């Protein structure tokens, strides 16, 4: 694909992620940390986030199976999840975490409460993987990293 078209596609893909509410302005803060020393900083951070969040999700699932009444523990995991998600600008996911947290406070957790979190996590992972795959094709020198 012609390079300029590729750049346009990358820009459009990123804009869609914002327009659809998957990402918020915190993602721009990550982009502002990229420099010549760390040209792929955002992708590296996002990959680290998904490794970390996948482990947290496993912990939550295990906790839901073995001791679903331990709302304190569930909430502790979810607070971590929410914090990390907000740090990369994962807006929808952060909101799902907040809803789960509220259910923990009400001591009213069902299996599907967590399924929604899992689902949003999976969707975001797919979308960001596709975005970074395309971004790699553009190359570090030509990235559009402008904020709104």
């Amino acid at each position: 694909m012609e390079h300029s078209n590729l750049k346009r596609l990358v820009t459009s893909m990123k804009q869609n992620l914002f327009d659809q509410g998957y990402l918020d302005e915190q993602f721009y803060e990550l982009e502002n940390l990229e420099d010549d020393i760390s040209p792929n900083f955002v992708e590296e951070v996002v990959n680290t986030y998904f490794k970390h969040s996948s482990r947290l999700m496993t912990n939550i699932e295990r906790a839901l199976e073995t001791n679903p009444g331990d709302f304190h523990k569930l909430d502790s995991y979810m607070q971590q999840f929410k914090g990390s998600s907000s740090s990369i600008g994962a807006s929808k996911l952060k909101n799902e975490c907040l809803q789960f947290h509220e259910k923990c406070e009400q001591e009213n957790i069902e299996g599907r409460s967590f399924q929604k979190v899992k689902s949003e996590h999976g969707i975001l992972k797919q979308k960001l993987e596709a975005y970074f795959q395309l971004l790699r094709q553009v190359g570090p020198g030509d990235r559009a990293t402008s904020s709104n």
Partner: protein
Amino acid sequence: MAGIWETYPNALSLKHKLRALVVNDSKFEQVLLVAVLSRVGVETLVADNEKEALEVIQEGVILDLIIMDREMHDLDDGIHATRKLRAMGVTAKIIGISTEDMREAELEFLNAGADEYLTKPVKKEKLMSILEEIDNKI
């Protein structure tokens, strides 16, 4: 020594070489905070928990700033650690961070001895302003 020293080429306009400790059990969040701090030339240590944070202090490391996560192994670990550090005579500026955007959460941290409270995600501009304040007071 507990934690990891992260040192980067001096990047910005602080007059002094500041040293910070990030206390957070999330490696991911450690990476982010270290990235922000290091880009302005702050020498940054990390500690995964209260125990490691206390070890850093006991080793005689002089800190200018401590960024303390509230929710580590337990929901109030950061508050407990803050209280402990102040009891040990630590005078570094302590910023408590949490996902809770509530006045009670802020008050708990401040009452434990934190100087400021920020909700996640921590904004770079706010951190920079705190660093400048520390830098100007030296």
